[in-house]
């Protein structure tokens, strides 16, 4: 079957197997930022934004998002400039191996759009679905706070 998909504002018409997952389709289209880790909806590494909201692409049937708009990390950095969230993650050491970072970045983006000035507890709750084995989370919590500041236009 064929579906229409808008990824990072770019329109795609793509032939898929009816049982194919969005994760596989996006990676096949070249959006390699969408990472495969658990493949069973338990780690958050494959998170993408569907109409601005985070979803797990490993358990989302591609067929179910026909005519929908998807955002991946590739769409975040315009003209190769880093997005403030990405800057914040780098500056706080929030990315070690970096494998979880695409999913985390998108979840942060959606979260900060709703809550531009979160406290620690709100951050932990909002990002609970994004596992990281490297950092122990400390630096990533700092990253979200710094990103929020940057997005609010405040200096560090």
């Amino acid at each position, binding site marked *: 079957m064929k579906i229409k998909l808008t990824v990072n504002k770019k329109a795609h018409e793509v032939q898929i197997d009816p049982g194919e997952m969005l994760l596989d389709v996006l990676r096949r289209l070249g959006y390699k930022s969408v990472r495969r*880790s658990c*493949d069973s909806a338990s780690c958050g590494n494959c998170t993408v934004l569907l109409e601005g909201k985070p979803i797990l692409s490993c358990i989302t049937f591609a067929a179910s998002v026909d005519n929908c708009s998807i955002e991946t990390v590739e769409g975040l950095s315009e003209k190769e400039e*880093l997005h403030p969230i990405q800057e914040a993650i780098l500056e706080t050491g929030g*990315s*070690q191996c970096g494998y979880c970072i695409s999913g985390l970045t998108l979840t942060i983006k959606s979260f900060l759009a709703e809550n531009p000035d979160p406290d620690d507890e709100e951050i932990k709750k909002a990002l609970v679905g994004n596992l990281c084995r490297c950092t122990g*989370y*400390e630096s990533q919590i700092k990253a979200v706070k710094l990103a929020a500041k940057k997005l609010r236009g405040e200096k560090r």
Partner: protein
Amino acid sequence: MSERKKFNYVNKNEIKVDGPSILKGKPVYTDDFDFPGALHVVLVRSTYPHARIKSIDKEKALKVPGVVEILTYEDVPQKIFTKAGQGYPEPSPYDSFILSKKVRYVGDPVAIVAAETVNAARIAASKVNVEYEKLEPVLDFKKATKDGAPVIHDEEGTKDIYDPSRNIASHYEMEVGNTDEVMEKCDYVVEKTYHINTQLHAMMEPHVSISYYDANGRLVVITSTQVPFHTRRILSMIFDIPIRKIRVIKPRIGGGFGGKQAVHVEPYVIAVTLKTGRPARMIFERPEVSMATNIRHEMEFKATVGASKDGTIKALSLDGLSNTGAYGEHALTVFMVAGSKTLPLYNKVEAVRFRGDVVYTNLPPAGAYRGYGAPQGLFALDCVIDELAHELEADPLELKRKNAIKEGETSPIFKIMGEGTEGVEQIVRSCKLDECIEKGKKIIKWDEKINHKKEPGKKVRGVGCALAMQGSGIAKVDMGAASVKVNEDGSVNLHLGATDLGTGSDTIMAQIVAETLDIPVEKVIVYSSDTDMTPFDVGAYASSTTYVSGNAVKNAAEKLKNRIKEKAAHYLNTDVDNIEVKNQHALNKENGEKISFSDLFTKLFYTFEQEQLMASASYVGNESPPPYLATFAEVEVDLETGKVDVLKIVSVADCGMPINPIQARGQLEGATMQGLGWALYEDVKYDGRGRMLTNDFFTYKIPSRMDYVNMECYLVDSYEPSGPFGAKSIAEIGIDTPVPAIANAIYNATGIRLREAPFSSEKLLMEILKNEI
């Protein structure tokens, strides 16, 4: 301390050199590389823990549309080897085949299926019909050596298995003085047995490899590995392909923690490429990562400590048993590290003993895992000393501190125990353990909390501490090399074998070059871990990279600096001694004349004494300076449920001079959290047939953000004279302490001593009920 100075690029929080590409989601990990026409590989795995293969029927599977090739033990070389990636000759027994006629754990590879799509390969794999002759398995490591126990490695041709007939993969024993005699004379002797379960690495990127022939017919392997050069050597040996015809490339790696210090994937994709001539790729599914790669060695130690009334520890003994599972990857060395990286901490003893067996079972093979045996050994050692403190009615922190090693001291164990071989004598040149203790105890408020009166109520609180040491590479074994060359714009290429698996080593190596040559970090272009393009390095393990590879990089950069000075002296018509290298210039100190690097390097290419300036260096440590760590935990125990909440965990480390403080602290934070998970809820369970039940993130619980506790990690001011710019290691040590520190805190809170880790609520509640607390 005379070498200390103010640094320009070292000891600075430079952002990671690979950070921007990763953050932008560029295709940088192995699975991101597209190879048109690549075959997808899936393994058929054993469903029995111990069985002989009677027959394999491929017929139905071969009929699945898209299936190209199915290989069994009859189709691949039967060369015995070890999957462990370590110094050669490896101290691990040779006891593995690519595919064997016998399977030894649930998950052992039986057949390789290659197909045009991953789905076709999976469907076909499920249709391969294997007939087994079931054998009785060994599922309890304490029963592995019993008379009449089934023999797991009865195959021909194994090498360096200590006693295959009794399932003993490796054995080690050492003694300084006469431990039993000294114990007898001690005022206090405490002897207890501690058991600690295995742990899963649970790195986010699954094991993944791609193999293909390049245009010149050489075999290229892109792989998620910690050990690219060992991988090339092993592949050359098992497939009988000359080293010169193999290239191993390590791209960005999504975490390893020791789990990628072995060849788990590479042989299987290569077998397909060799057979079909086509590119082949495989990424493990999460359950395969969990149950069919390596796990941590489960261990049990009988720990004995003898002391005099005044709290001087006179004798120590660790008598252990380690479970290496079906194969002996890292069996001997991990076990030795349980002693060699723990016992020297208490160096004032008159006698010390370490001994035990590493045994085979029909469970997933254990291997390298962050800490490499030290956390298992330290759980027993630290807790038994904590128990001694209780007997002596002493403050456990003060007892440990009083007996711990100090700067300028040594331990005979450094010389006796290496990894697989003898070790190396060394004097501890940097040890700021006291500073670590002072800082940590203030933050946790140790003095007011350790003896506090218990409040009546359903919830009780307590504090615990643990001290640790590790090493920095394997002295006189681990070698790392680097080369540097200059470009016209004043930039420098750094090529090195060291393997950045997410730790940030590429970044700190760039900082070391930048500091040596006084050029900005962005002018250092790092390329690492490609067996064709970079010099040799053993890889990322044994906390070696900062110290061993870092010293190689520093030496190469120093050599290059001398060449730059030489050429600048010619150009500026002066003596080389008058030349100083400063801020991307070579400067005549006498008259202030100078030439910029970009000018000089351009002239050297085209018009002046034409030469490509470059330099290389190799480094092998003459010693392995230990980092040190003091960890404090405060817990709250719910007496009605046994639930343990870690209210705060504080880890303060001496890692020498951190090259990049944020990255170094990140290693400590990550390791602390990984240790905390292991202490409380990361618990591997098997069914009655040895099948791992906890093989995904639903059943094997790693810490999530909601489990994040109040964690504070610090690095104290320290400088290791033999390290590059004063640096020692930091990546492993953080995982050594959370388990004993939390055990000690639970004891302080409840009076219950848990000697079986992890400390689940169920376990603790049973003890609470038994003891009527």
